[in-house]
């Protein structure tokens, strides 16, 4: 059960109530004392705002996360940031449908308000004062709005629980025959019939999400079986597969490393998707890690060919170093 009083909450977090109350008060009036704003460029002049949490509060957040994970179990409708949930299992759930519809919640963490977190905690049996204190400790205040900060360890858990509480059951009620998969802020609705109008579903879901949560949806896509169905960074038409463009670029890079000038390939890779790599060894190591990830979504022959070529490139790299 969730802590019954604020003092028991402090006790569970191995701290004292005075400190919790102080932090909560300061978070309301001076959030900038605990969060440092970092802007990450997204391209085309846009940027993503994430918050670096001050170490004392970050530790408190990790304790709160442990406590909430134990006390508020998942309903099973969240497929991201949950213990025991694998990407391959989620992909298996989504693959091979006649119609796949995807929507994205706009600024998901920012859209989850402190009030929604409080109500969710109350729904799970927390006393109002305890729910309010937990929500206040986990949220950031900017202007008149208090919301979940992107960058805190507890935000993914709370956003999942709020979505489960407010949205998931409503979606299941509306579309009982559809396979609904919510991967953090990405919502995938899959139908096994082609008699459903994708556009109508998008309009209805957008309205439902707005009514139930106040969140907005964007990047809506209707993907019938005769077109490429993409989700979770994979192609999901018949079975989950590595996208062809990604496969070809990875194959080309590995081939060039095995047969052409290594330093030249490093420069090319740095100009592309591997900007943070400094040496050929680092690049080869990173490619090894990527291959391990993609193994689950590649045919065995394709994987073994790539691995063989990459091993050849690695051998070449070692030989060149010895020379």
């Amino acid at each position, binding site marked *: 059960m969730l802590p019954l009083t604020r003092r028991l909450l402090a006790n569970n977090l191995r701290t*004292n109530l005075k400190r919790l109350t102080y932090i909560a008060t300061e978070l309301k009036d001076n959030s900038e004392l605990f969060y440092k704003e970092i802007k990450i460029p997204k391209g085309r002049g846009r940027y993503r705002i994430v918050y670096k949490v001050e170490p004392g509060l970050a530790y408190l957040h990790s304790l709160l996360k442990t406590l909430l994970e134990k006390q508020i179990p998942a309903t099973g409708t969240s497929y991201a940031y949950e213990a025991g949930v694998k990407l391959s299992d989620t992909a298996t759930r989504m693959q091979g449908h006649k119609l796949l519809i995807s929507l994205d919640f706009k600024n998901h963490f920012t859209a989850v308000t402190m009030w929604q977190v409080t109500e969710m905690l109350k729904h799970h049996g927390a006393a109002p004062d305890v729910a309010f204190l937990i929500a206040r400790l986990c949220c950031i205040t900017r202007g008149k709005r208090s919301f979940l900060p992107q960058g805190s360890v507890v935000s993914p858990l709370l956003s999942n629980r709020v979505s489960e509480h407010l949205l998931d059951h409503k979606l299941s009620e509306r579309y009982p025959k559809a396979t609904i998969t919510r991967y953090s802020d990405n919502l995938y609705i899959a139908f096994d019939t082609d008699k459903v109008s994708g556009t109508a579903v998008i309009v209805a879901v957008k309205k439902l999400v707005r009514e139930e949560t106040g969140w907005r949806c964007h990047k809506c896509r209707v993907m019938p079986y005769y077109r490429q169905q993409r989700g979770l960074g994979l192609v999901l038409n018949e079975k989950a597969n590595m996208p062809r463009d990604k496969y070809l670029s990875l194959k080309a890079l590995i081939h060039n490393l095995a047969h052409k000038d290594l330093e030249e390939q490093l420069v090319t890779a740095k100009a592309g998707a591997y900007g943070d790599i400094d040496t050929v060894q680092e690049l080869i190591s990173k490619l090894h890690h990527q291959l391990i990830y993609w193994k689950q979504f590649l045919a065995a022959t394709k994987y073994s060919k790539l691995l063989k070529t990459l091993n050849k490139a690695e051998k070449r790299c070692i030989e060149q170093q010895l020379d």
Partner: protein
Amino acid sequence: MTCSIKKLPDDLGVIIITLPKSSRGITAVPGIGWAADIEVLVFRDEFSLATNLSKLGACFAVDSLSSLGDSSLSTTITNAVRSNTEWVIDRCYLASPLEIMRNKYKMMSYHVGVGNCLFKCSSTAIYDSEVGTFNSLEACVYQIDHLMGQCNLGMPKCAEGLAEYVTANKEITS
């Protein structure tokens, strides 16, 4: 004296008693600051204590309700249990949540006369999820001071006295 009682869901044999700070008089209460309201948990019997204590928090001072120190506060708590439940007082247990301040238990009963205590140091057990359960007197560095009648459980000295045992045993368990 006014006190509020909160029963746990499903009546698991636990109640939370909250008393205003004015009710403590000069009684030392472990884990609760001098200016704070008193909040203690009463368990129906040994079984409910063993089953529910670890679910409710991380560290507590625990003793049988019948072996509490002789103070008006203990009488108030006993009366509150009597009037609100049908539990047998001799079987009940009292637990006081211990907060932590700078890695030590918060023992903040300042300006308290020796002899005025809610918990008797000799019979009180301390439950800590990271250390285990131990007797407060046996673990304390200042046990001779207590035996000579110079301190009681809840006074600032206890935080220092128990810190060494807690740190040493936390390292062992971790």
